[in-house]
């Protein structure tokens, strides 16, 4: 089984064109759910996550010659998926999507902490959407989704210390933005 998997990775890296295509299909079918789930955590929209999953796998297909089988497929796929999501965030005004898609959910009363009012949550969601994408993606994965910092660092291709700095900056900017709106979280 192990040999079979490593064979697929080698074929994907440097097989004949037919072997690359066959290996790519195998890897796609094996990893599409994981890649989709990871992207969904970042973009928070199932249709967009599907679209970006295809985009990410297309990039993997294009970059197959640079794939290093010894380092495993999951981490490499996750890095490319994160990059695809980041490019999408940079190209789009996510704050607009946040307002329309999450308004109803965000406006619902909080049962766990009544001090965090619907207004605070809504303005926080909007302010979060205004953060620079590279800070937003780090905070989304590390704070909201609670992913281990080493996984976030690997996916973003940065150090754990850099993840901590980005999260800290994201929270500080968020707080300042809310204070400008007259809210003290």
């Amino acid at each position, binding site marked *: 089984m192990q040999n079979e998997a490593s064979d697929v990775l080698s074929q994907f890296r440097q097989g004949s064109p037919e072997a690359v295509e066959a290996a790519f299909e195998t890897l796609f079918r094996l990893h599409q759910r994981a890649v989709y*789930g990871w992207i*969904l955590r970042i973009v928070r929209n199932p249709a967009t996550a599907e679209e970006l999953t*295809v985009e990410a796998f297309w990039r993997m*297909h294009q970059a197959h010659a640079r794939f290093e089988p010894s380092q495993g497929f999951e981490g490499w796929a996750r890095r490319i998926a994160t990059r695809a999501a980041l490019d999408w965030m940079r190209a789009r005004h996510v704050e607009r999507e946040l307002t329309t898609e999450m308004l109803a959910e965000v406006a619902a009363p909080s049962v766990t902490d009544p001090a*965090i009012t619907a207004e*605070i949550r809504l303005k*926080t969601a909007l302010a979060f959407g205004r953060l620079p994408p590279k800070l937003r993606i780090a905070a989304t994965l590390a704070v909201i*989704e609670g992913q281990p910092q080493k996984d976030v660092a690997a996916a973003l291709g940065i150090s754990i210390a850099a993840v901590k700095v980005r999260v800290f900056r994201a*929270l500080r900017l968020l*707080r300042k933005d809310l204070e400008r709106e007259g809210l003290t979280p």
Partner: protein
Amino acid sequence: MNAHDDERMKEVLRRALPPVEGDELGRDLWPAMLRRMDAESGAAQSPGWAWFDAALLAGMVAFGVFVPAAIPVLLFYL
């Protein structure tokens, strides 16, 4: 911002944007992947315009070399 503020801000953020639930993929994306690959390979082998343009340009250059007197006339009509 102290550690308490930091934790409070994280909590507010998590309340505003709760973690995604149900990250199950509802359908197989392989057909969409195939469509994407077909579209990209179609774009890569885009119609023979590039080849046609090169041939036309080569013809014009050859014409200019063999009949230089025609160049001002061609330029006049361009």
